[in-house]
């Protein structure tokens, strides 16, 4: 499993989206499956909009979860993004 590039822009792949904010529980919907999202995983997926780089997502979550070790937060996020990529839920776009 390779690690996502820090300066790439993760974006939900075609056919993948969050359910509405008014719906509980929040889930990531994708072809023929759905993934339930808890606090941190929802924070991550909400930022996979093609506008945040991997690095920016890491920095923002390190701020939100400031009590956790920053390296641990980074490691968890990279692992989660790679998992979503392997589910084919994310594209990683490179822009200049």
């Amino acid at each position, binding site marked *: 499993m390779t690690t996502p590039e820090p300066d790439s822009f993760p974006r939900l792949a*075609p056919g993948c989206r969050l359910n*509405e904010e008014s719906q509980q529980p929040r889930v990531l919907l994708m*072809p023929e499956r759905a993934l339930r999202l808890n606090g941190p995983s929802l924070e991550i997926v909400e930022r996979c909009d093609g506008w945040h780089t991997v690095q920016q997502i890491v920095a923002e979550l390190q701020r939100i979860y400031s009590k956790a070790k920053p390296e641990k937060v980074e490691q968890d996020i990279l692992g989660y993004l790679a998992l979503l990529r392997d589910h*084919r839920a994310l594209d990683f776009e490179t822009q200049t």
Partner: protein
Amino acid sequence: MSAATSGPLALVAEITHRCPLHCVYCSNPLEMAKRDRELPAGAWSRVLREAAGLGVLQVDFTGGEPLARPDLLELVRAARGAGLYASLITSGIPLDEKRLDELVAAGLDHLQLSFQGAREASANEFAGSAAHAQKLRVADWVKRRRIGLTLNFVIHRQNLGQLDEMLALTETIAPGRAEFAHVQYYGWAFANRERLLPTREQLGRSLETLRRAEERWRGRIRVEYVVPDYYAKYPKACMGGWGRKVLLVAPGGEAMPCHAANVIPGMKFENVAARSLREIWEQSDAFRKFRGEQWMPEPCRSCDRRALDFGGCRCQAFLLAGEAAATDPVCSLAPRRSIVDAILAEVNSAPPAAARQKIDWIYRPNPA
């Protein structure tokens, strides 16, 4: 049995049995619903809202061919309006770019396109219709729009030899997801079973090929396939368990635990026109009949796997053993496993090459 269970997660909306294709392994029942019995769009809209209220997240519009309904657009809009993820399970016929644009604008999330093979002539033979070229066009149109695309290859004895070509076609189209689905032996496939079951050797080779493709495409194309259950050691967890995760509504409004359940004698399905989906899900005899573990015979009842595969498939138990509450005969622990072994012995004694002569397929017709 715990009374009412959690809600279903997926609704299979079988909106019509009409179809331009006549596939020899169609999963529709041998007795199909006629057009004038189809639920109107208004009733479907209510069903979709009730489904969302029950906790359903996703709806699969299927058939027959769902595109055969002129009001499909209204149904997709109603699904999204109810907060559901909307998938279209289709042959791609009849579809043009204008209608696809309308479906995307209505909120269609995902389109699953079926393929009968990679070679035009034989694909058309299995479909009983000249459909293959149109499917290639549809795949291209979908790729140029921002919705999910799954390619679904239905595989069996007569087209497993084309598996490498199917993989090459998949790689060219590059969908997000590709299913290589062995035919399941219900409905029309049961009638054509001897012509469709692969040999053990064919199967082994195909599984190895698919494992390699899955590895090669990781992160690009999600590959899904399963061992056809006649060859498996344990049965499949059919529908994720009877009345546990999935609810199907047939064209005429009958709510069913699975699409084949009407082969089981004495089953009575309540109609969504007469009762709410919640009442049907929680209280109807059909959904409660094989829910939980009370109905299970031995060896299921004391089996460690009973919460994994739920004793397998009730419809298959009836089709093979003549008894819906029997342990699924495909299970290696089933008292009636010898039925499946006898079928496999026959299939594996005839070489698949010989089967490529002209075959007398039983094609599914179109309901009036």
